[in-house]
């Protein structure tokens, strides 16, 4: 899609060019017509003068040179005439009649126009001159007299041409100046739009939760709608999370009662019943935890969500240290130092909590977490110095439902939930050998765009 700026520029430029050209051409045409009219009446006067200058000489009719302007004597002066007598035969045999010509035309013969009056089109003159031609028909000495007077129009045409170039140049410069000014004006007028765009970008990066309301009234409805939508999404998400949490709570407590009943001494006489019931209850518990976790993820991440590593990791590690109350060295590091990750806090805590909890279960003394931001991805790496997982079995561990860690206290759900979250965030998960000797879990998450 073209930018508004570009559209406005193209529109303005084409309108200006069209109007400018039409105006210039019209004014030139008007000027030309006026000039021709005034020159035409001059030529008519000249023709009248010439008629008056016709005198009967000794042999024939001739022009009284004394009454002629000297300009008709000078060759190619630009003023010419031709007088045809016996004008009734002019059309058939031009040479049979008497022709009087100005000396200025030299060897050029003026073409006799077909109709009297000022000619619409310019005639050819000597030395490529363009002539404005006037023909006047008279009757003198009992003869038809056609007087053709011509005037060089080339200087006028040349100055028109010059005018056109000057006009084109000036018009071009004016156009450029106008376009630049318009660009500046449009840019200033669109500034609020640009700031809204910046804010939407920040919104996506999770640096703000709503758009600034201080915008011009044209933009206000848009901004308000976006804000309302954001609020609505947030509320819906919160509601559905709450609803799911409540459902979980509602189901889990009766399940806990069932676990307790199952452990009653009255039932201990039927160990196989107790065992199979316990297995089923465990099944329900695991499915419940997994599905609740997944359903919670189903909503799109809240706009404006972020995870501040320096703020969230210390309490998480304190919690882990507390849960795994033994001699464990837990260590974390982020690159760069102050790292803000653009994902939901709860999702990341869930992801890291489960990963690290698993690592703590297996580790003998050390667990390390490294978070690195590289280009558009964030790499989370969890290392432990436990027994690790045989390369051949790693794929098996990643398959849903497999529980390699079931013999260790806890649900053994860890990696499944981690996988769900990684899938939800469109990331990848892989298991490698850790330099510490145990398992390394590498998670690569693409930064949201």
């Amino acid at each position, binding site marked *: 899609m073209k930018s508004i700026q570009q559209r406005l520029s193209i529109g303005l430029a084409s309108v200006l060019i069209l109007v400018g050209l039409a105006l210039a051409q019209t004014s030139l045409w008007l000027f030309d017509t006026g000039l021709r009219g005034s020159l035409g009446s001059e030529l008519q006067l000249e023709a009248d003068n010439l008629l008056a200058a016709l005198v009967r000489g000794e042999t024939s009719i001739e022009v009284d040179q004394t009454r002629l302007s000297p300009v008709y004597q000078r060759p190619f002066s630009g003023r010419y005439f031709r007088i045809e007598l016996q004008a009734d035969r002019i059309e058939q045999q031009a040479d049979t009649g008497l022709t009087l010509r100005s000396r200025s035309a030299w060897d050029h013969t003026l073409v006799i126009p077909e109709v009297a009056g000022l000619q619409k089109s310019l005639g050819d003159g000597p030395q490529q001159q363009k002539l404005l031609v006037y023909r006047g028909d008279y009757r003198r000495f009992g003869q038809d007299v056609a007087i053709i007077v011509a005037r060089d129009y080339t200087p006028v045409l040349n100055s028109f041409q010059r005018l056109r170039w000057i006009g084109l140049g000036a018009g071009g410069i004016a156009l450029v100046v106008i376009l630049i000014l318009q660009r500046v004006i449009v840019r200033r007028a669109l500034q609020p739009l640009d700031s809204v765009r910046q804010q939407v970008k920040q919104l996506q990066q999770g640096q703000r939760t709503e758009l600034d309301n201080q915008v011009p009234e044209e933009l206000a409805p848009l901004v308000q709608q976006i804000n309302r939508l954001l609020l609505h999404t947030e509320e819906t998400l919160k509601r559905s999370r709450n609803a799911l949490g409540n459902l979980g*709570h509602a189901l889990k407590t009766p399940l806990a009662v069932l676990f307790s009943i199952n452990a009653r001494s009255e039932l201990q006489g039927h160990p196989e019943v107790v065992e199979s019931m316990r297995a089923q209850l465990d099944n329900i518990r695991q499915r419940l935890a997994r599905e609740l976790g997944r359903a919670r993820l189903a909503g799109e991440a809240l706009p404006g969500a972020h995870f501040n590593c320096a703020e969230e990791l210390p309490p998480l590690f304190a*919690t882990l240290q*507390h849960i795994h109350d033994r001699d464990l060295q837990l260590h974390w590091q982020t690159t760069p130092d102050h790292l803000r990750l653009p994902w939901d806090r*709860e999702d990341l805590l869930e992801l890291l909590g489960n990963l690290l909890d698993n690592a703590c279960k297996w580790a003998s003394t050390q667990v390390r977490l490294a978070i690195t931001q590289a280009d558009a991805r964030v790499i989370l790496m969890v290392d432990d110095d436990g027994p690790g997982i045989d390369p051949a079995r790693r794929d098996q561990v990643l398959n849903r439902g497999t529980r390699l860690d079931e013999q260790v206290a806890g649900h053994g759900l860890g990696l499944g939930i981690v996988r769900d979250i990684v899938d939800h965030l469109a990331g990848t998960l892989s298991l490698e050998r850790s330099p510490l000797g145990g398992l390394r879990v590498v998670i690569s998450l693409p930064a949201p765009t």
Partner: protein
Amino acid sequence: MRLLIVEDDVALADELTADLGRSGYAVDWLADGRDAQYQGASEPYDLIVLDLGLPGKPGLDVLREWRAGGLTTPVLILTARDHWAERIDGLKAGADDYLTKPFHPEELQLRIQSLLRRAHGLANQAHLEVGGLHLDESRQAVIRNGNDIILTAAEFSLLRYLMLHPQQIVSKLQLLEHLYDGETERDSNVIEVHVNHLRRKLGKAVIETRRGQGYKFHGVTAGSTS
């Protein structure tokens, strides 16, 4: 050991009370957050099991106010909310452990035992083992030199309390307060009877009587056989 269970689900609370009672704990039960806040701070409990979704007052608020008021009793949060964010919030508010529903009853027992040991400076210990005696809390028996000695429920809870306070003088009043729940009639003569039973089973030197003060647990020192 006297426990307070704050849980609004009656069925679960009944189960927990019965289960923990069988394990020799004196158990008080409350369902309302406001009651819990008052009673938890005023009665001498050894451990509190706290649900988070309580009527009256949210469990986390109750816990925060206990801690703000200087209560140091270990608190185990028992909740259906199993997210790490909630777990962290719970521990931040001052909980000592966090167990999510549903749970196996034996898991709760283990957590309570370990919390009590930790609260009495016996951390990093998988069993209660003091003064040459090893208390098997699941079977309510005491093991001395590899020999099982079966205890009655009353003897077991008395011995457990004394073993968690080794080399300390424990008054009769203290024993009455911590071995019986709020409903039971308390009789200090009963304590004397149980102490004598324990002496008969484990040897006279195990528990010393300090006249006018109370009892002191010494355990069986190496070499003493009777």
